C-alpha cells in the first residue's frame, strides 16, 4: 500500500514538472509587472489604481502585464526576485514600503528597469525612476470643500499610519480647512486621528463613528483599506465622507461627497508608455501634481457639492498651479502656512 501511494505521488510530481517545462515562453513583447505592498491588489486604493494603470497600458500599448501581491514585509524581496526571474523589462514597487528593497534589487540588476510609487531617492540609480504625487494638493481642495459644507463646524481626518505620504494628506487637508476659515471667516475645527493600520476596516469604522459622535459631519480618510470602514460608518450614520486615491463615490453614492484623487494609474501608465517609446526617465524622480492632471478632486463631486463651491475650487486650483498658494505637506510647512494667512 505504502509503495503504491509513493508511486502515485512520484508520478504526479513528474507529470506536473513536465507540464511546467512545456509552459513558458512569451515572445518579444515588453513585460511589465508590479509588486504590491501588503494592502493587496484590491485595496480600493492606490495598489488597485496602479493595477488599473498597468492594465490600461497592457491594452493600449500591447505590453504584457502582471502583478504579484505581498502578504508581509518579508515578501518584498522574494517577490522582486520572482519578478526578475520571470524576465520582466520593468518592475514596479507600489508604495514607499518597497523603497529599500527596490533600491537593492536595482543595484544588483542594472540591466532591469525598476520604478517605485511614492518614494523619492536622494540618489536615484540610472535604471530606477521614482514617481511621487503632490497628495497635499487634492487634500487641500477637499479640505476647502469640507470646511464650506460642514453644518456642525467640525470635520474629521482619519490617517492610516504616520509617515511622509499620509502626513502630506493630513496637512494639505488641514490647510484647506484653515484657508477656508480665513477666507470665509468661519471657525471649522479638524479632528485628526490615526488608525495605525492600512488594512483594519473595523478600526476605521470605530474611529469614524466616534468622530461623528463628537459632532463632525464630514470625515476624510487617507488610510487605504481602513477607509472602507470610514465610508461604511458614514453610510450607516447618514453622514458624509471624503474618499481618497480613486473616485470612491461608488462605495456609498449618497455619502461620499468627493474624493482626493491621486491618479497612480496615470503615473504608472505614463512611465510604461515612456519605456515603450524608448524615453524611460531613469535616474530621476517624476513629480505629479495638479498641473500634470495626476491629482484632482473626483469627477462625481458635482453630485453633492454645490456649483458655487466647485467654482471656487477651480479658482483655487489655478492659484495652486500658478504658485499663488503653496500647499503645505508637513507639520513645519503647515505652521508657516497658517502664520502667513
Amino acid at each position, binding site marked *: *500500500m*505504502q509503495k503504491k*501511494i509513493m508511486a*502515485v*505521488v512520484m508520478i*504526479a*510530481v513528474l*507529470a*506536473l*514538472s*513536465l*507540464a*511546467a*517545462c*512545456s*509552459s513558458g515562453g512569451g515572445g518579444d513583447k515588453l513585460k511589465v*509587472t508590479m509588486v504590491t505592498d*501588503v494592502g*493587496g*491588489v*484590491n485595496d480600493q486604493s492606490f495598489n488597485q489604481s496602479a493595477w488599473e494603470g498597468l492594465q490600461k497600458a497592457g491594452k493600449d500599448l500591447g505590453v504584457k502585464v*502582471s*502583478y*504579484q*501581491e505581498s*502578504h*508581509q*514585509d*518579508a*515578501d518584498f*524581496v*522574494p*517577490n522582486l*526576485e*520572482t*519578478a526578475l*526571474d*520571470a524576465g520582466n523589462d520593468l518592475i514596479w514597487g507600489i508604495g*514607499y*514600503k518597497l*523603497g*529599500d528593497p527596490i533600491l537593492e534589487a536595482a543595484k544588483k540588476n542594472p540591466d532591469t528597469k525598476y520604478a517605485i510609487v511614492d518614494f523619492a531617492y536622494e540618489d536615484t540609480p540610472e535604471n530606477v525612476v521614482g514617481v511621487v504625487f503632490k497628495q497635499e494638493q487634492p487634500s487641500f481642495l477637499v479640505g476647502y470643500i469640507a470646511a464650506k459644507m460642514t453644518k456642525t463646524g467640525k470635520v474629521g481626518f482619519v490617517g*492610516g*499610519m*504616520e*509617515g*511622509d505620504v499620509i502626513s502630506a494628506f493630513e496637512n494639505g487637508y488641514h490647510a484647506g480647512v484653515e484657508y477656508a476659515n480665513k477666507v470665509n471667516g468661519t471657525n471649522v475645527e479638524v479632528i485628526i486621528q490615526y488608525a*495605525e*493600520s*492600512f*488594512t*483594519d476596516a473595523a478600526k476605521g469604522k470605530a474611529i469614524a463613528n466616534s468622530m461623528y459622535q463628537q459632532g463632525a459631519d464630514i470625515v476624510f480618510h487617507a488610510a487605504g483599506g481602513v477607509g472602507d470602514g470610514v465610508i461604511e460608518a458614514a453610510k450607516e450614520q447618514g453622514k458624509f465622507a471624503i474618499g481618497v486615491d480613486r473616485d470612491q463615490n461608488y462605495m456609498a453614492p449618497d455619502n461620499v461627497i468627493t474624493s482626493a484623487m491621486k491618479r497612480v494609474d496615470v503615473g504608472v501608465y505614463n512611465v510604461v508608455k515612456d519605456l515603450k517609446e524608448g524615453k524611460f526617465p531613469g535616474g530621476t524622480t517624476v513629480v505629479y501634481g495638479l498641473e500634470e492632471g495626476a491629482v484632482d478632486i473626483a469627477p462625481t463631486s458635482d453630485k453633492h457639492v454645490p456649483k458655487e463651491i466647485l467654482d471656487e475650487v477651480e479658482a483655487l486650483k489655478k492659484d495652486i498651479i500658478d504658485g499663488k498658494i503653496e500647499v503645505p505637506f508637513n507639520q513645519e510647512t503647515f505652521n508657516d502656512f497658517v502664520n502667513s494667512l
Partner: protein
Amino acid sequence: MMKENRLKFTIIAILIGLVIGAIILLAVGYNPLEAYGIMIAGVFGSPKYISWTIIKSTPLILTGISVAFAFKTGLFNIGAEGQFIIGALVATLAGYFLHLPPVLHAIVALLLACLAAALWGGFAGFLKSKFGVNEVITTIMLNWIAFYLSNFLVYWDKFKRPNSEASQKILSSASIAFPKEFGSSLGSFFNAPVNFGFIIAILVAFLIKYVLNDTTLGYELRAVGFNKDAAEYGGINVKKNTITAMMIAGAISGLAGAVHVLGVTNEISILSAMEGNGFDGMAVSLIGGNSPIGCIFAGLLFGALKYGGYKIQPIMGAPSEIINIVIGIIVFFIAMPKMIEGLTTIRSRRKRGGEVERSK
C-alpha cells in the same frame, strides 16, 4: 503501525486537497496542471528558490512546534503570533543596542528574545493557573498588546530609522546569516539570505521531542495534557506545569521571531496587520500531527505552498483570490487526515460487514 497509517492518511489528504484545488482552477478556466507545474517549478526550479522556501518555512516550523508543544500539555496557544512579535522585537533591540563580539552577540540576542517571549507566554499560563482565565482568551488579547507595543517602540526616536517605517537594522555582529564567502562556491543557493535559523529549528524540534518523551518534566506535562485531574491525583503540580508549558511554548515562538529578524529581515517594521507567522503555526502544528518532528515537514510544506503558490498569479494571470482559495483548500485537507482516516475505516468496516453477511 499507527505512525505509518498517519503518514498514509496525510499523503492521501494532500492528494485530495490538490485534486479539489485543481477542480476549482478548472471551474474558473485555468489549467490546473500548468498551475501546479508553476508552483513546483517555483519551489524546486532553482537552488535559490529552494533556499527561499526554507527561509519562508523556518519561522513556521518553530511556531508550529510552539503550538504543538502547548497542545501536548493540554493548552491551546493562540498567542504564538504575539510571542513571535515579542521575540522579533527583543531580538532587534538586542541586536541594535548591545555591542558584543560576533557569535556571542547573536546568541545573547536569541536568548533574550526567548526569555522575553517566555515571560510573555508564561503570563497567560500564570493567569490560567492562578485565576482560571482561559488561555485562548488571554493569548488573543496578548497578541494585540504585543502588536501595538512593537509598533510603539519602532516609533521611538532612538530606535526608528529616519525616513522609514522600520527600526534601525541590527549590527552585523548579531546576524545569523551564513558568512558570504561560504556561499560563492555553491552558486545561487546563497543568493537568498540563507541563515542558521533552519538548523536551529531542527535542533529545537529534536530537543522538544526529547523533553516531551524522555524527561520527567515532559512526562508530567503530557500527563497534565492527557488528564488534568488524574495528573493532580498522581501528585503532579498542575498549576506549575501550566505556567512552565506556556513559558516553553512562548520561548519557541519568540525564537521564531528572533531567527526571522537576525537571519532575514535584520529589522522590524511598523506592522499594519498581523503577519500571520504565529497563526500559520497552528495550521503547521495540525498538519504535523502535533509532533515536533512532524512540524519540520509540515512547516516546509506550508512554506512551499505559500512561496510557490503565489508565483502562479503573475504567470497565469489568475486572480490572487483564486490562488488563495486553492492554497486554503489544500491546507484544509492536509490539516485533517483524521477525517480521511475516519472515512476509510467506515468503508473497510462496511466491507467487512458485507463479508459477514455473505458468509452467513
